């Protein structure tokens, strides 16, 4: 019986946010707190000749100033959490990423000095008095250009700026042979442009060293406090982990950018020990543009071959992936294991090869951003197949339906084994597309498109995607280079009065865990939602956590909770059996009580809880208490999928493109809270559409980010979007107890190519046979494409 699961339960976390009582890191004040400002390099590539802090030290309110040379050599810098070695077996190039630069700055925004003062304004004022003498060098910003001979080098000892190269799938010769035998080959060179994540809360960190307990506390805007603690203690500062508490309080959005362990976190902790005061650092938006790890930035060439029946026979992809100046926490995994492995898509393509070269450039680090690798893979596949349909003059929806993998549930039918190292869990792909076609009114649309006479062009674009979520089986990712496990932990603590506290390692920063997780607990335990509290984000209360990213919270974190609930109920049954003088095998649990089957003899959850803590009349040999921890390590990724359709209208005179409709049918497995899942889809769609139409970081050839503010970077606004039309199908995940697949990234993964495809479709129908327009699709670019 489910009272809560599957229902749009209103969020329990909302009240504090609606009344201004949310507590984000920058809202926290401590007695004696001082404020830090980080002086950053204005140059992309320069040698520091000298830093003079004398004038700044004497400025009003200044407490301390540290430069790179003040930090001991033993503190090498922030580490990378994933190792991808070269094809020839050579180790990945992993140059140090110092907390503050000592000699050479490698991107605009590289930290040069930290100025600590009694107020943020004083710290900022004083930083302007720090005199840094630089020798400026040439810079390289494009990932392909960086790999060419003679390009400026980002790091000594990294020839051609290559961090690693990597290949997956069938041998290249086999793919080439299949392409040679194809009746049609579609080839595309394209750029998946660099994105700035732009969580609305700028990053913030408070470091506090408490002399009384010899203990450090870090409050930080993070998606995973435990991972941050582990990386900072073990690999950066060499601190005893049990003497460090990391808290991720309310966090104002992450989208990937707050997964990573950042230099500023270690810096405020280290500085707080030096000056014995709590230190707060909160970045400005301009600083966020320069230093929050960016996303995407791939330069790709890809070929897809078809036989005479329109079946895909082969796919070859070559990608240059920009790593930025340093390897961020998960950066090497993004263009490889989160991108190359998804190139099977929903199709039966028999031969696939993907080749990736990852390069350093004089730009900010690039890492996971909503979707992380999977949007790039989807963009590659879906642009190719839509373009192929235009080139071969066949219907793009039919071409997809012809190539879809047949349905399999992962129970009766085996999971589908791809050419690129994955086994899909369960899938039924035609229904999502058919449902989307029905919603859009496909035949009527094509008629309208043909008969248009208002000086506009109409276009329709498709995207049918798959993603790998629920990250991830530890042993699998370990064999692929991950330096951490990717399980999740949960503790279910039943209090003596029968109220339940759940400690989850999955951090919530907008996803609504405090509601969704409580729905699961309340239903499984047969108690009221109000009697459950979800606690997360504090390493002193939660045992351990791997955090929130890769659409994993419910599939992995939720499953860990289920495991603990099962343990509670199993022990509860023993206590109940004792109280009912029955065998626990004869009991059934429903509606919050254990009943002896076929009788009206029962005992409630509250009585059993109390007995567990007041064990006077108690089973012999059984420990008191009702409190269980579990670690859940998934056996496979989960594979959500869906079909997205965009309809655009282009003004022929100006190139102005209006997104008229957006239809998304997603299959994320079972759904616990439809309202929250819909909200996740909406947000993802906006970011994916934002990439297609509005956003993109632009570096000039000297390595300056020339649109590093909200006046220059086009953040999507409310009137850039229509109301989204969304629906779903449900194909349960066969390998986790909830049957869920994850919904956080779907919108961002599927939507981008649908929009671009729609614009290309409109242009072809208007007689302009262009293959590609660079994203974002500004009116100027669309107009230019129509002039050929």
């Amino acid at each position: 019986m489910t009272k809560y699961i599957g229902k749009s339960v209103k969020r329990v976390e909302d009240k504090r946010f609606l009344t201004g009582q949310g507590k984000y890191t920058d809202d926290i004040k401590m007695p004696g707190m001082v404020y830090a400002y980080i002086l950053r390099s204005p140059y992309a590539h320069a040698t520091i000749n000298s830093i003079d802090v004398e004038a700044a030290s004497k400025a009003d309110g200044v407490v301390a100033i540290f430069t790179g040379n003040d930090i001991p050599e033993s503190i090498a810098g922030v580490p990378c959490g994933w190792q991808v070695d070269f094809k020839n077996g050579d180790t990945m190039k992993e140059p140090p990423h110092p907390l503050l630069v000592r000699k050479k700055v490698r991107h605009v925004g590289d930290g040069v000095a930290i100025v600590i003062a009694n107020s943020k304004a004083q710290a900022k004022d004083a930083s302007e008095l720090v005199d840094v003498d630089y020798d400026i060098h040439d810079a390289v910003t494009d990932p392909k250009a960086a790999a060419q001979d003679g390009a400026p080098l980002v790091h000594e000892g990294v020839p051609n700026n290559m961090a690693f190269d990597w290949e997956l799938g069938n041998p290249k010769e086999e793919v080439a042979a299949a392409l040679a035998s194809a009746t049609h080959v579609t080839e595309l060179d394209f750029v998946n442009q660099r994105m700035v994540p732009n969580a609305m809360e700028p990053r913030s960190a408070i470091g506090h060293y408490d002399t009384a307990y010899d203990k450090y506390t870090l409050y930080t805007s993070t998606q995973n406090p435990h991972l941050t603690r582990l990386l900072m203690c073990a690999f950066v500062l060499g601190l005893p982990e049990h003497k460090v508490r990391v808290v991720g309080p309310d966090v104002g959005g992450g989208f990937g950018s707050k997964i990573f362990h950042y230099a500023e976190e270690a810096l405020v902790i280290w500085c707080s020990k030096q000056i014995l005061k709590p230190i707060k650092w909160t970045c400005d938006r301009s600083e966020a543009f320069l230093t929050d790890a960016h996303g995407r930035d791939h330069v790709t060439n890809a070929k897809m071959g078809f036989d005479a029946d329109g079946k895909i026979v082969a796919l070859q992809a070559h990608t240059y992936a920009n790593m930025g100046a340093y390897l961020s926490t998960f950066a090497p995994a993004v263009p490889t294991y989160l991108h190359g492995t998804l190139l099977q898509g929903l199709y039966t393509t028999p031969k696939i090869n993907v080749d990736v070269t990852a390069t350093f450039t004089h730009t900010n680090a690039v890492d996971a951003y909503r979707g992380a690798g999977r949007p790039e893979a989807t963009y590659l596949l879906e642009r190719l197949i839509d373009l192929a349909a235009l080139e071969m003059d066949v219907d793009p929806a039919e071409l997809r339906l012809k190539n879809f993998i047949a349905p399999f549930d992962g129970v009766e039918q085996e999971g589908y084994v791809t050419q690129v190292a994955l086994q899909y869990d369960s899938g039924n792909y035609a229904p999502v597309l058919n449902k989307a076609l029905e919603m859009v009114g496909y035949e009527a649309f094509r008629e309208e498109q043909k008969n248009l006479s208002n000086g506009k062009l109409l276009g329709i674009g498709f995207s049918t995607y798959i993603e790998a979520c629920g990250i991830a089986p530890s042993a699998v990712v370990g064999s692929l280079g991950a330096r951490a496990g990717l399980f999740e932990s949960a503790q279910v603590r039943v209090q003596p009065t029968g109220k339940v506290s759940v400690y989850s390692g999955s951090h919530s920063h907008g996803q609504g865990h405090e509601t969704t997780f409580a729905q699961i607990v309340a239903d499984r335990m047969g108690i009221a939602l109000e009697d459950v509290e979800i606690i997360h984000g504090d390493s002193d209360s939660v045992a351990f956590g791997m955090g929130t990213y890769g659409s994993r919270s419910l599939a992995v974190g939720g499953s860990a909770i289920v495991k603990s609930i099962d343990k509670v109920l199993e022990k509860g049954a023993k206590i109940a059996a004792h109280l009912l003088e029955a065998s626990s095998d004869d009991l059934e649990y429903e509606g919050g009580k254990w009943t002896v089957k076929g009788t009206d003899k029962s005992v409630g959850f509250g009585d059993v809880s109390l007995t567990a803590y007041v064990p006077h009349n108690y089973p012999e040999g059984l420990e008191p208490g009702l409190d269980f921890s579990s670690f859940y390590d998934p056996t496979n990724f989960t594979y959500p999928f869906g079909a997205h359709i965009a309809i655009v209208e282009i003004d022929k005179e100006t190139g102005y493109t209006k997104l008229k409709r957006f239809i998304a049918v997603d299959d994320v497995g079972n759904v616990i809270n439809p309202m929250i899942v819909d909200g996740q889809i909406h947000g993802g769609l906006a970011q994916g559409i934002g990439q297609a139409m509005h956003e993109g970081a632009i570096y000039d050839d000297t390595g300056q980010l020339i649109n590093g503010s909200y006046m220059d970077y086009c953040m999507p606004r409310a009137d850039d979007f229509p109301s989204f039309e969304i629906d779903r199908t449900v194909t349960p995940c066969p390998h986790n107890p909830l049957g869920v697949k994850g919904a956080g990234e779907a919108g961002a993964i599927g939507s981008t190519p649908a929009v671009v495809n729609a614009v290309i479709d409109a242009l072809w129908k208007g007689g302009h046979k262009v293959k590609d327009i660079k994203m974002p699709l500004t009116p100027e670019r669309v107009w230019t494409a129509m002039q050929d």
Partner: protein
Amino acid sequence: MANKISVMVNGKQCTGEVEARTLLSDYLREDLSLTGTHIGCDTSSCGACTVHVNGKAIKSCTMLAVQVDGSEVTTVEGLSTNGSLHPIQEGFKEEHGLQCGFCTPGMMMMATDFLKSNPNPSEKEIREALEGNFCRCTGYHNIVKSIQHAAKKMQGVEA
């Protein structure tokens, strides 16, 4: 350097000294500890810091604290009275108009002022009114619905 100001904030008279360059947003957050007003940018673009000054929605990072001397300021903390949620707060909760909650106070302060001048707005009008407020979580879809929900509720209450 210090300037004495006296402001009525959420119905309470607040008197204090501020530097001439202190922004209203910083004054509210740092001096009055009203941290529901958020700062999301440094170019007056994002709207997270929107409050009401004398009943009108303004981005509090575009005003100096000294400019509100003698004015009435309402922040998100002053939106609900007598313990029950304001219709706009109710709308955001019912329609899932918030996820991370960071843009939400600014969104609600903007929307309440907007609904005063346009109590029965169309979807298009709402979307245009939201131009100066960024949200990265919701894709604005449910924010629009939340404001529609509040509009209906407020008309019902006033009718």
